[in-house]
């Protein structure tokens, strides 16, 4: 073996990166050799995306060292990364649909002749790189007219046109059909033969097993271990991705479940119109919905709350079928939704706490048909601030100035003042501190004890394991399984969430 083959192409050492309130990466190491496919896997929020952004120059690490061909380098911009031959292909494609394929490939570094764009050169060069990825389209076609799978290949061609030695792919197959995925895998194998290294991020462990030479597992922003090619099995990967204790954080008592408050039969949503969802939640029960990002969980809640149209199926609340044409129908039936995007959908951020808490109940408390009941508004808000321990100088404080946890409590307060029968929560503790988290958990517990049916979506494994009486697992728009409390384990959830069969 030559000396060059022994030094890794790219290596990072003890990389740390923090965002306000969050430690995204802590002393992470990663090495990438020439001509290998390295899969980076981990749960949502394990730090994969942050690490990739650092490699591609989108973000700077707080501390740590990056080496290319054994020489230390500082990658401080996307431009530097490209100069070193590192290209990142985002999960959401970045092609301009209104430009042709050639223009997209050379966007921002168009070859010039006499000061004008040299279209001839673009055409020739584009043809060459497109043939490398086996894509038989004319460079003059509009990028927007290509299928998603083909657009993905154009992105790869674009990376090749800058002579990328490292191509980072962030969940490239998330929106591809299986045929298109197979096509992509062939291209990846072909690139590997040519000595290009690939960092491949995916939640789909099946793909990882098929493609990767080596697997690097991240957990909570730290290295959880590496697997070399002969060690890569579904079970081993899941074991490494989870594998930690659950602290005694969740004060759960089991309640005798009451009547079925929410019954869903054959629900079809616009995100996955071909899938049907059926389940029920009883009074006093806390049901968790697990799954990977994009499994259709948020869309299911939005449809249940009447925000997105329902394509088919029936929804019954306390045995009575309800029609869900708008969120008002859902609210009238006793449903409440704490949405995933707190600032975008849950709060009117520039308004005071009082206006936010009362927003949903204004209508119920109105006087003489149209007038606002200021007294009810004030007493409700005071009650919610006391009951939920919202830390705010006054009810008139603008919500923007509250911390994430207190903002979330304001959203919950808005719904509690409506005394809902079914509470839907979407990632209820995302981005909030540990103390507020625990308060929200105990609140869910209290509500369940009072006979509210609680259905929550979470991507945090601990939360699912700690809080749910029953867990529904979704994968690509369908329910892949239902786990009772005794069947519940991280491995079982991961197995179902990644599309494997449940074997318990």
């Amino acid at each position, binding site marked *: 073996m030559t000396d060059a083959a022994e030094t890794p192409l790219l290596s990072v050492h003890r990389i740390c990166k923090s965002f306000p309130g969050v430690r995204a990466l802590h002393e992470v190491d990663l090495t990438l050799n020439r001509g290998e496919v390295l899969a980076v896997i981990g749960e949502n929020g394990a730090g994969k995306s942050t690490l990739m952004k650092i490699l591609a120059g989108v973000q700077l690490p707080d501390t740590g060292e990056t080496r290319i061909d054994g020489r230390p380098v500082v990658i401080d911009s996307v431009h530097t990364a490209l100069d070193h031959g590192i290209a990142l292909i985002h999960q959401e494609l970045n092609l301009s649909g209104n430009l042709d394929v050639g223009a997209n490939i050379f966007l921002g570094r168009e070859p010039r002749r006499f000061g004008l764009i040299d279209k001839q050169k673009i055409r020739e060069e584009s043809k060459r790189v497109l043939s490398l990825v086996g894509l038989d389209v004319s460079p003059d076609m509009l990028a927007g007219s290509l299928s998603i799978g083909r657009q993905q290949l154009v992105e790869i061609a674009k990376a090749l046109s800058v002579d990328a030695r490292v191509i980072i792919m962030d969940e490239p197959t998330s929106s591809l059909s299986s045929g298109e995925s197979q096509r992509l895998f062939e291209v990846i194998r072909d690139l590997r033969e040519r000595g290009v290294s690939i960092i491949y991020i995916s939640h789909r462990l099946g793909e990882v097993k098929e493609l990767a030479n080596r697997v690097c597992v991240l957990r909570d922003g730290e290295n959880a271990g590496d697997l070399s090619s002969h060690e890569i099995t579904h079970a081993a990967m899941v074991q490494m991705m989870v594998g930690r204790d659950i602290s005694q954080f969740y004060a759960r008592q089991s309640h005798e479940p009451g009547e079925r408050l929410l019954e869903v039969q054959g629900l079809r949503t616009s995100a996955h119109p071909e899938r049907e969802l059926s389940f029920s939640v009883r009074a006093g029960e806390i049901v968790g919905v697990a799954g990977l990002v994009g499994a259709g969980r948020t869309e299911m809640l939005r449809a249940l709350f009447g925000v997105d149209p329902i394509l088919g199926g029936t929804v019954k609340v306390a045995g009575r079928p309800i029609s869900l044409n708008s969120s008002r129908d859902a609210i009238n039936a006793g449903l409440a939704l704490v949405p995933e995007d707190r600032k975008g959908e849950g709060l009117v951020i*520039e308004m005071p706490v009082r*206006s936010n808490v009362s927003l949903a109940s204004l209508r119920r408390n109105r006087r003489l048909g149209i007038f606002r009941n200021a007294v009810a508004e004030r007493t409700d808000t005071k009650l919610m601030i006391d009951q939920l321990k919202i830390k705010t100088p006054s009810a008139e404080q603008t919500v*923007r100035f509250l911390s994430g946890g207190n903002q979330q409590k304001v959203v919950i307060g808005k719904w509690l003042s409506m005394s809902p029968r079914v509470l839907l929560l979407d990632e209820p503790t995302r981005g909030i501190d540990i103390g507020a988290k625990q308060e929200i958990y105990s609140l869910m517990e209290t509500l369940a004890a009072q006979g509210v049916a609680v259905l929550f979506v979470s991507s945090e494994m601990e939360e699912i394991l700690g809080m749910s009486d029953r867990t529904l697992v979704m994968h690509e728009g369908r329910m892949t399984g239902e786990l009772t409390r005794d069947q519940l384990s991280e491995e079982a959830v991961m197995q179902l969430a990644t599309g494997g069969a449940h074997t318990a």
Partner: protein
Amino acid sequence: MNKILGILLLLVFVCIGTTLLTDAFVKPFNMQNIVRHSALYGIIGVGVAMVIITGGIDLSIGSVIGLVGCLLPMLLVDRGWSVPKSLAAVMLLSLLIGLTHGLLITKMRLQPFIVTLCGLLVYRGLARWLTSDQTKGFGSDFNDSLRLLAIGKPCSVAFLALLAGVGVTLWCGWRLIRGRSGLAGSDEAKTARWQLPAVGVVLGLLLIVIGGSRFAMGYQIESAGTLVSLGPLDFPAWTTRVHPDAVGLPRLWMTRAGWLVPVGAVWLTVVLALRSPRPIVFPVLLAIAAAGLVWAATTLVGWPDDQFWLGPAWARTWRIMTVFSSLGLLMASLAWLGRRAVRIAGTAATAPLLLTSGCAILWLLGKTPLGETLVPAPLILLMVLAFVASVFLNQTIYGRYLLALGNNEEAARFSGINTDRMILLAYVLCSLAAGLGGILFALDTNSIQPASHGNFYELYAIAAAVLGGCSLRGGEGTILGVVIGAAVMRVLYNSINLIGIPSQLEFAIIGLVILLGVIADEAVKRMAARQSQSPER
């Protein structure tokens, strides 16, 4: 609240500056014209504010005014329709226009800018086609009836002062009685509970005396004709007659209100001296110096042209520059002083400040013939409309929905609010206000050019709303602010004409003042955001 105070200060600034430069400004005739025009623009401003609060825009207002202005005389004069029928017809048309805009924007998801821009072109074209570009008017048949709606003067300022005095006295008196019952809480709260209402009562009683003195001395309201007859019901139009003896008395009382200025000033001084006098020494000295400069500038106004530096050609520029800059300095130092005082002493300073400034304003107004000025009818209409709009925006659930969805439409939708219906409502209200404005503008001018009547009025309305504190991003705005904003626009326009700035510069100056106002507002907002250290971001 701060925003309204800022725009109010701007209005006062331009008014005082213009008064110092020319006597013509406060002449009753001029004041009546300004108020009438401000009220007309205020009406369409209130309408467009509803749309701006949702985050939208309505560019078609001017063309709606043009179309309504052409249709009304056509129906009344050419077709011989009855007054109620014609008014109902044009208001129905405005309602349909608003409904169309709203439906296109909410159901078809078109952009408000495009929809209403097309409206601007369509309605203007229709107006020109319907009239074959012929000038329309009401002739002289309606001078003693319907036109009084726009050009009538149903009462005098003294009467409004009397009404306002009664209102303020009753409101503050009630607050005073209720506040004194429980004297628990901090000193601050106690002060707020009785000092502020007490000062309010004093100022209210003063207003009653000022207005009433005029009313007692031969102030007369009489019927000037029939405004509208609806079957057996006649709505008479009132007009006012002034008894010559009644002119001096309100002025006398306004001058006497000045006696309370030193009382308030001494009170304020004592309050501040008890707390910490040092921080206000500099603003006080600055204010005194600035007052001296203003006095010097007013004498400069009286100089003959040829005594100015750079010669007579520059005389006008010198007068305008010196008056406005010294006045600006004075007002800035007074505002600074007020802010300092409130920050040092809190509500304990607010009461004497209110008394001093309130009485000083009454005293200054006593120097002008404002007390004898008559009130144009559109002002009454605007006051009613603004009151209803304020109640709608602040006291009804729908007003809150509009503000909420203007800030964050998704969050409003997720809270069970039918956002589409609310947006539709906003466009309907805006077009109805434009229709009402169209009727009044037509009655006011009596000579409607189909191609130009109402041109750019939408921009005046939008400018008034923005000056008054509406954010074009939506979710922000007060009705009072919009009304004051409209007044600022008209006063500026009038001032430019009176003090002899070339009228070609009119747009440039109004544009610059609005721009400066918005820049100042943004700067203040950023400063406030930096001061209230947010835990996040």
